[in-house]
């Protein structure tokens, strides 16, 4: 399939990336989902919308984020030159704010005064609460009980920012359950409420909207590497939960056939154990949370709870565009276990003086193999999509250290 010529048509008019995506929502939400799409099309044509976003990206978020040559990590593996796209340096410490900013600006255009969000690691919740504080909007964040417990610093941060946290006890109390509860709230308060979805999933047009807002990562990275190295990279890598940071990095490189797009899923205790969050490597297509995509599910179509040490990757699905990229063979998807991520977390911290979040630590864990595969003349970019401050306590616990 020649993506160079055909890519722009995805998603199609029905919100599909090939066989994936769509709008699988309750009828109550359909008019709103259609209205959101219409409003987004208008906003995209509006120079004032772009200008407001650009201004806040520059002066509030701190974009562009640097492209950093990870010299010691490169030396450690002895292969391709490894660059980090430093999205962990954004305001609030992760890539999530790129998308929150865009969606909240859309919500304001639509006259919605109440913003709801789901969060796993708490990064999307913090970013949403931050933007809501900035614009004086009511913010309600749904978070699984398990995640409230393991991400306490972010819970407090959100409360400081004025957000209301709703702990969700259904299911296993993780991201999937938080998303169910957010959808229930949205159905109930559809007139007043804007649902700010944190990842490149959910019903159309969310996967497209989130991708477009996050594509600032790849656009910057592409320009920066051309300036630094005078050529495109051989590979770009990112971790994948729902896949928003990865699609944001990948998308501007999709037409560059020589650039390998590599995503890394969370393999938890190992894909063979069934205790993982690798929807592409260990799931099959199904329908959940508004879209058709790869899901962890039983033979009978019941959703299986994901497992990952990283709350941000602990989700049984994946954005529909990744499902499509994998099926057409344009992107590769690897996986990484909890233990490998913990080792990579420590390696990066020691060698580069950068404490990564556990999420990008999954990508760091696979970067050595790819770097060796590409060889010393190779060039690659890894998206360091979040910083690890929030994970310090759970890493200490996993390492058996009492802090």
């Amino acid at each position, binding site marked *: 399939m020649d993506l160079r010529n055909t890519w722009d048509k995805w998603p199609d008019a029905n919100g599909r990336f090939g066989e994936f995506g769509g709008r699988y929502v309750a009828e109550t939400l359909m008019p709103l989902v259609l209205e959101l799409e219409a409003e987004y099309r208008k906003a995209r044509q509006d120079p004032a919308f772009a200008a407001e976003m650009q201004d806040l990206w520059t002066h509030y978020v701190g974009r562009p984020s640097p492209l950093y040559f990870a010299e010691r990590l490169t030396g450690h593996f002895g292969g391709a030159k490894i660059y980090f796209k430093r999205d962990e340096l954004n305001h609030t410490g992760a890539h999530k704010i790129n998308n929150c900013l865009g969606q909240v600006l859309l919500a304001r255009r639509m006259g919605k005064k109440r913003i709801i969000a789901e969060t796993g690691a708490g990064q999307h919740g913090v970013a949403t609460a931050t933007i809501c504080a900035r614009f004086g909007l009511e913010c309600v964040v749904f978070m699984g009980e398990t995640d409230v417990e393991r991400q306490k610093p972010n819970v407090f941060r959100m409360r400081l920012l004025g957000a209301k946290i709703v702990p969700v006890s259904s299911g296993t109390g993780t991201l999937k359950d938080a998303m169910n509860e957010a959808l229930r709230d949205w159905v109930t308060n559809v007139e007043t409420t804007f649902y700010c979805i944190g990842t490149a999933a959910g019903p159309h047009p969310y996967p497209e909207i989130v991708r477009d807002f996050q594509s600032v990562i790849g656009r910057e990275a592409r320009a920066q590497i051309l300036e630094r190295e005078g050529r495109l990279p051989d590979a770009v890598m990112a971790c994948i939960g729902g896949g928003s940071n990865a699609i944001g990095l990948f998308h501007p490189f999709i037409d560059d056939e020589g650039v390998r797009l590599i995503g890394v899923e969370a393999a938890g205790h190992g894909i063979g154990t069934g205790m993982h969050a690798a929807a592409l490597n260990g799931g099959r297509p199904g329908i959940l949370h508004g879209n058709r995509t790869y899901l962890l599910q039983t*033979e009978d179509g019941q959703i299986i709870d994901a497992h990952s040490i990283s709350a941000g990757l602990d989700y049984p699905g994946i954005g529909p565009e990744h499902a499509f990229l994998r099926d057409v063979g344009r992107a590769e998807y690897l996986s990484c276990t909890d233990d490998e991520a913990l080792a990579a977390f420590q390696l990066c911290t020691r060698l580069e003086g950068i404490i990564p979040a556990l999420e990008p630590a999954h990508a760091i864990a696979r970067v050595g193999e790819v770097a060796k595969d590409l060889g010393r003349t190779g060039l690659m970019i890894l998206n360091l999509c979040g910083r690890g401050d929030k994970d310090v306590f759970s890493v200490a616990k996993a390492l058996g250290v009492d802090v």
Partner: protein
Amino acid sequence: MGRTRIEGAFARARGENRAVLVAYLMAGDPDLETSYAALCALRDNGADIIELGAPFTDPMADGAAIQKAGLRALANGTKLTDVIALAARFREEDQTTPLILMGYANPVHSMGYETFADAASKAGIDGSIIVDLPPEEDAPLRELYTQRGLSVIRLATPTTDEHRAAKVSEGASGFIYFVAVTGVTGAGSADPAAIAGQVAMVKRVSGLPVCVGFGVKSGAQAAEMAKIADGVVVGSAFVEKAGDAHATGRFKAAAPAMGALARELRAAIDSVRKA
């Protein structure tokens, strides 16, 4: 093809100048044997149409009562194939009462739309309400249903304007399920006066009977809804009876309790004879 069972149920009620009672139960809650007894009790006590809930792990449009019912059904191993088998068992005894399967897309998608349509048709199921398959997404299933005489029952809601009502009506059959409140099942209660105009609009645009549900629990509420619609759907209130049986361990109490509720609701509906 002659009259469908669903059309028959509405025709009988029309003949008696009354609205139909649509009762919902979650298959497999607290177990399949109890569900079978409940199906019979509902039918014997005046339910005109029965919605058979198929459990799903992530019921995003359901409130606490039906969420818990689904989890109880899943905990004892209820699969979609069991729900279909339960319908088939009921259909052996009863060739009249329409059975509608109500659930979410993934278990049906997982089984395969065609396999499901064949199995449902063979079991004597009359149609389905798949909450997360709006008109934009149900075309593959719709085609299979049409070939087999099954009904695609669509939802209309307080957010449905006349333009959207036309979309919802396209390819719909059986009846339209009007969701009385913006919200999840079992939450809040609707004001019949506030939705009466919209219900009439949906009926005019679709040319189909309209049943109103969500938040209808008591006889008094059912009677009010019966004045403005062709049918009244009650779900969570029945499901709570199964929940009580589960909590006390007295499963045999569930079917009589559900039957008694159906009788009460039906009497209330019958008290509102239409002109």
